[in-house]
């Protein structure tokens, strides 16, 4: 039990996928202007990351490894994840149109989201079993979501502050991301 807890906390805070591993910075800046959108985007990432990690695990275990094709890992994963995102897009459009609307152009962004890809690859590198993979992917996705919501909360407040012209918008977003990243370093020694 304890090891799962540690895995969870580790993935969520200590090795936070954006703030500690610097993966998925593009949607992190892009969708963090409003907390509503951030929640939606975060949710989508959690969902896709879990699915992607699970499916790529199966692909790795039952297709690539048995045939000694693990050198194709990256290519195969890209293909699988891209199809998966397409699928999620269709699924959301049909089932949760409101969420689909608010994610707008950001859903396709997940296709090339290195956070999702990164999670899948880390799982393989660490040679986790399926359950651990799913849990790890979920926790990492949550880590992404937490970071995104925190940043969105701050940026919403900042939107109406008096700022030097040059700092408005993305620049201050990046500075904030940097500061948050420093803050998250405080978790480093904990596990």
């Amino acid at each position, binding site marked *: 039990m304890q090891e799962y807890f540690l895995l969870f906390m580790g993935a969520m805070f200590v090795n936070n996928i954006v703030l500690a591993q610097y993966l998925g910075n593009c949607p992190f800046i892009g969708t963090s202007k409003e907390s509503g959108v951030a929640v939606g985007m975060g949710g989508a990432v959690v969902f896709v990351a879990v699915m992607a990690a699970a499916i790529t695990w199966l692909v790795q275990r039952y297709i690539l490894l048995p045939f000694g094709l693990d050198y194709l890992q990256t290519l195969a994963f890209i293909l699988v994840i891209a199809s998966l995102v397409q*699928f999620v897009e269709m699924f959301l459009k049909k089932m949760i149109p*409101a969420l689909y609307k608010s994610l707008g152009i950001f859903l396709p962004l997940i296709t090339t989201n290195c956070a999702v890809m990164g999670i899948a690859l880390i799982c393989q590198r660490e040679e986790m079993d399926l359950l651990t993979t799913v849990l790890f992917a979920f926790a990492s996705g949550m880590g992404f979501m937490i970071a995104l919501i925190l940043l969105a909360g701050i940026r919403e407040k900042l939107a109406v502050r008096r700022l030097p012209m040059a700092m408005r918008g993305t620049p201050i977003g990046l500075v904030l991301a940097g500061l948050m990243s420093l803050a998250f370093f405080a978790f480093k020694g904990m596990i």
Partner: protein
Amino acid sequence: MIITSGLTLFSIGLGAATILSVAGRLLYVKEDPRITRIEEALPGANCGGCGFPGCSGAAAAIVANKASASVCIVADAETNGVVAAIMGQEVVEREPELAMCDCTGGQRATDTFYYEGAFDCRAAHQLYGGSKSCPSGCLGFGTCVRACSFNAIHMGPDGLPVIDYDECKGCGSCVDVCPRGVIGVVGMTARLLHLNQTTDCLAPCQQKCPAQIDIPKYISQIKMGDLDGAVATIRERNPLLVICSRVCPRPCETQCRRQHVDEPVGINMLKRFVADRELRSGVRLPIPCAKDTGKKIAVIGGGPAGLSCAYFLRRLGHHPTIFDAMPELGGQTRYGIPEYRLPKADLDWEIQGILDLGISVKVNTKFGVDFTLETLKEEGFDATFLGIGAWQASGMYAEGEDLDGVMGGIEFLTAHALGQKPAIGDHVIVVGGGNTAIDAARTCIRLGAEVTLMYRRTRTEMPADMEEIVGAEEEGVQFEFLAAPARVIGDENGRATHLEYYEMELGEPDNSGRRRPVKKEGSEKRMAASLIIPAIGQKPDLSCLYEEGDEESCPLETTRWQTILANEDTFETAIPGIFTAGDVYTGPDLVVSAIGDGRKAARSIHYYITQGEIPIPDATQRDMIPHTLFKEINNVERKDRAVLSHLCHGDERNCTFNEVEGPLSEAEARAEADRCLRCGLVCYDETIDQQEYREKKNI
């Protein structure tokens, strides 16, 4: 190896493609093509002002019939037309709603320049509740400016947000961020229906004005040169500005904080300045009205109360019909107030402007004779307003007062206004000390008679306005103070020849606070008179409400002053759907009160016919708000009040009915407007030197 890799990737791709195509079939969403077309037509501002998530959300809502084709607040009429056409609907015009800042500024605005810390209203509000003394005023950090996505707000030189109405779309983002609630998004209807609230930023003058005119706003518009805007501001509360600017005794000026420095601001002269400018320009400013509702309302009585009620009902989109017993509208302002104070031509112009909005009129139709409450109901009126004024003269309670040669003040003025040339002879005695008495006396002087005005107290106790008394003195009216009529003496033909009167002296104060006159026994004297005009007081003539001789059959509740009883906030009488206001409700009062109450009655009627219930908010302001009344004012430079020029002078005045007082010039008006301290609840503009201010505050 290459072949294996290729095949593997191909087969993975094939698998994924198969799954996707199956899913594509299963999860296919049939989207209404109109959504995309509407989305393309919409401006794409994604402001959220419509209440849906972005333009695509709005488009979907329109197609799903959850929103009207004109839901977009940014779109112009053309875009709305395109959207409506896609939906196969007609365009419905929507009343525009715009942001309004109700804070008037004053001292707190300067403060913000020296405030250091977070430049955010909300932060300042949370940290210190705002550093300013006023609990509801603007903090001036401009959070609303930054929140506006249309660049429609900027900070004015006085540190208050200025809204650019060409750019404002009424999306309400500024309202959301303002921690003080001084910005609101309101449309015309809501503004017309608004009653003063104790939570509003109300300068003392605005609290006092019976018509609740936004006085600081129109004065600042005059100062800025927006004279048409000033007229529009006044018309939101008072449709009779030409009349009021001439005859109003100005309750507002009694509350002006400037009087603690020098003299009150000439609020009414400023009104006169803008009103006359429109009057003389020959072009009427447009008065917007809400969309037609098709509701019919009967307005009985075309005096100030009836005109005001009909005007506001019309602007709210209803269809009032005015019924009046007299040949022309205006009530006492036409048949009581004489020409030299209010020229009939100007009165006609003003009333015509109101009727032109689309109000039907039936003159020479007397309520109680030509029609009744029942016939109105049969004709399909949705509600009735009763504003028949107070036209019955009170008697002198003196023997012989029904002789020939005795004529009530109202009766005399009405006869004169109707051009009936009542015979007055060469010496007239007017009895009474109110405005009616003075008006009758000054009219007789102009008709060439010698006039004595008899009043039972002294000059200081006279209820008439001081200017009126001075005017009468200048024109040569003789005053007989401390004299009360005892008996009218007639000749053998039954015509009055003399008035016998007592001398009086002042005794203990009565409950009105004035010293009660007591008659000196045995002091009877006589004075010869060709006409005696008692102008002691008036009361409503309610005989039109009941069958002849049977007061019990009156369907409405009345008071012992013969006025109609009604709810003091809603003005609804004992019979639902029948409303009242003006002199018939208050007893003889002022034009401006009749106008204000007429609007309140119109508001009630609007709610009554549209939703059945009449809401009266808890914070409705009725009395002056105590903490806003000051005894002294600091750091304000003295500036002289403007004086109205006299168009003709005392000695020539007694033979002409031409108007006595003239208007201000533009320069004078601006200078007068500049005297306004732009008060809020507790703040006002201190005209102190900025440098000195910094030193004083050690900044």
